[in-house]
């Protein structure tokens, strides 16, 4: 039965679609190239100015001892060597990984649950979609302040409610063991709406006839979810995971606003270390080297994911 269902009832696209090259004559090709260029420029120029340019500059700065004030001196790979032997570097990468390990499952499963709920004929679902998306477009500073108050260990809403049930709430952002979970909680809450929107779009692309056929064949809710919805949702899942991982490695705003890296450095993450090194300590060379290390890590993780997608992502 699953074999007959594994392919939706429409023709598979050709394996490789040849990109149009704009005609056969040289003049037509040139005109085509110009058109492509014209459409690319508005995004290529800012990209070159604000992303590629700074990246190249950072690569150069990472090989110098620039302190923002005095002229830079060439130091070769000293900054990288220093970072690799500094225990702080390991700490900030570990904290970042801990954040991702907590955040990713929470935001994905939460987003999935809401998307499944909103994909039904629920009353007021349009309104609910807006409500869930609202935190996504809210400034992190606002969200962080609200969560700081909610999770205030002494008189926050959360601990007050816990106290009604006789539970002695933890010192959320004042206890090193709870500070990262607090940040993860707030982050997952804020990003739920984004994940929900992507997954909802994926859900709505699933042919209802498939689910109906499965129901007729006696598949229960769980069976339909695992055997039909999840495989057909895999492109959306893949996109959410790639984007969330990249964003997760770059976590900064919420940490800066909620704990400032504290207590006792327990929530210091990579981007915050880059910020501190540059703007607090004037060690722009080291900060640039750390930026490049982070870039290489993100690139490697993303490449592995794209290679691995063949095994589990189903493009129908």
């Amino acid at each position, binding site marked *: 039965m699953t074999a007959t269902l594994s392919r939706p009832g429409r023709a598979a696209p050709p394996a490789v679609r040849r990109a149009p090259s704009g005609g056969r004559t040289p003049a037509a090709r040139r*005109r085509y190239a110009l058109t492509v260029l014209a459409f690319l*420029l508005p995004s290529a120029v800012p990209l070159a100015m604000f992303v590629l340019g700074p990246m190249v500059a950072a690569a150069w700065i990472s090989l110098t001892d620039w302190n923002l004030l005095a002229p830079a001196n060439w130091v070769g790979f000293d900054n990288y060597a220093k970072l690799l032997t500094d225990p702080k570097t390991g700490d900030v990468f570990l904290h970042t990984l801990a954040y991702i390990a907590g955040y990713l499952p929470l935001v994905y499963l939460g987003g999935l649950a809401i998307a499944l709920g909103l994909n039904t004929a629920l009353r007021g679902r349009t309104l609910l979609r807006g409500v869930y998306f609202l935190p996504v477009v809210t400034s992190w500073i606002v969200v962080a302040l609200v969560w700081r108050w909610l999770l205030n260990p002494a008189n926050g809403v959360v601990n007050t409610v816990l106290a009604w049930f006789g539970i002695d709430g933890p010192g959320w952002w*004042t206890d090193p063991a709870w500070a990262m979970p607090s940040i993860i909680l707030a982050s997952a809450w804020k990003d739920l709406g984004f994940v929900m929107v992507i997954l909802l779009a994926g859900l709505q692309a699933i042919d209802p006839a498939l689910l109906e056929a499965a129901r007729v064949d006696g598949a229960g809710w769980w069976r339909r979810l695992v055997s039909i919805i999840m495989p057909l949702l895999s492109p959306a899942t893949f996109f959410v995971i790639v984007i969330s991982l990249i964003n997760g490695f770059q976590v900064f705003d919420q940490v800066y606003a909620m704990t400032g890296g504290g*207590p006792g450095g327990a929530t210091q993450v990579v981007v915050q270390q880059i910020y501190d090194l540059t703007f607090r*300590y004037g060690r722009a060379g080291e900060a640039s080297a750390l930026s490049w290390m982070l870039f290489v890590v993100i690139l490697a993780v993303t490449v592995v994911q794209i290679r691995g997608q063949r095994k589990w992502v189903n493009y129908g």
Partner: protein
Amino acid sequence: MRTTALAAAGIAAAAALVMTACTADGGQADGPVTITYTNFISNDGNEENLQKIVAAFEEEHPDISVEVTTLPYADYGTALQTDLAAGTVSDVFDLEYANYAQYQANGVLAEIPVEDPSVYRESVLEAYATDGKQYALPSSFSTVVLFYNSDLFDAAGLEYPTSDWTWADEQAAAEQLTDQAAGVWGDHQPVSFYEFYKVLAQNGGEFLDESGTKTAFNTPEGVEAAEWLVGKSGTVMPTVEQGQGTPDFDTNLFSDGKLAMLHTGIWMFGAFADVPFGWDIAVEPGNTQQASALFSNAVGVSSGSKHQDAAAEFARFLTSSDVMVETRLDAGWELPVISDEAALESYLTLGDPANRQAVFDSLDQVALPPVVAKGQQEMQDIMTEELVEAQAGRKTVEEALASASERIDAAIG
């Protein structure tokens, strides 16, 4: 044809984007000039007072106008550093004593000729000179004193703090004044680098050794000083969980009449002027000796400024003119760094606090913050972080000091 037009439009749009990124630098002719001044000293209440001084300067120098930008102190250092790196720093900008050495060593400060150094308080002026040349001019100084709510002292039937108090007197009073059930606390002293170097001096210790590149505070005196600092939390002072350490927490608590004693700077006089209870100040108690924190702000002229003469003229006016002295004294702003004691007389009779003499008394034994040429901010951050660890009870005071000493040595060596 249509595609060519589209391409042309795209390229034009791109070219426009690139062109807005580079603006032409106009050459400087003689005649009226505009100089820029970025400051934090007037932020939070003294903006109009600064404007008064600027207006007087412009009146005296019709060919110079001054464009003032005011930033909050908390963001100022980052903004200044970014402007210096980007080459967009103002002609004249504020700096504080702790950062002077670093900026001077990196060549961002222009020399400011001073014709008559005798108008300035000599010791403070010298703090901004390197190799006999003046690279910044002190605009103000302030000290940290012990503020107290006299109504709370009266209610508890206690004697007011005097300038002869020691830590033990303060501790005893703080314990009696604390009434946690009523939300009233006996004492507040920030747990930070700036308090630690001072209480260390009050206990006869030194922060750095003679080389100036190695810490010297991990000693029995240092441990005792750190214990004095962190031990208040949870007994006579609120804990971090209760909000201690967040901006304005302590001064708001004092203004609300819920704090009996407060260690803070004389820059708070204006903010406390209208509180509905009696208050006064005393020189901060010491342990083996007295030591008061002396803060001093200064202005520097950017070595990249195109109007260095005009900028230096404004810097001199801002730090030594009669208008400045008068404005600062009238407003109860931080004190001008002038040598003329008589001009400061009026300060003593300005009203609350009554014991303004304590401000001058606190100058008798001052403790200047330790200054290093490299890693100043890191040193401060590490010290504060380790002290807060001890305050939270996650480390013993001994562990925190040992760790701080090791980490700071690595950062400043």
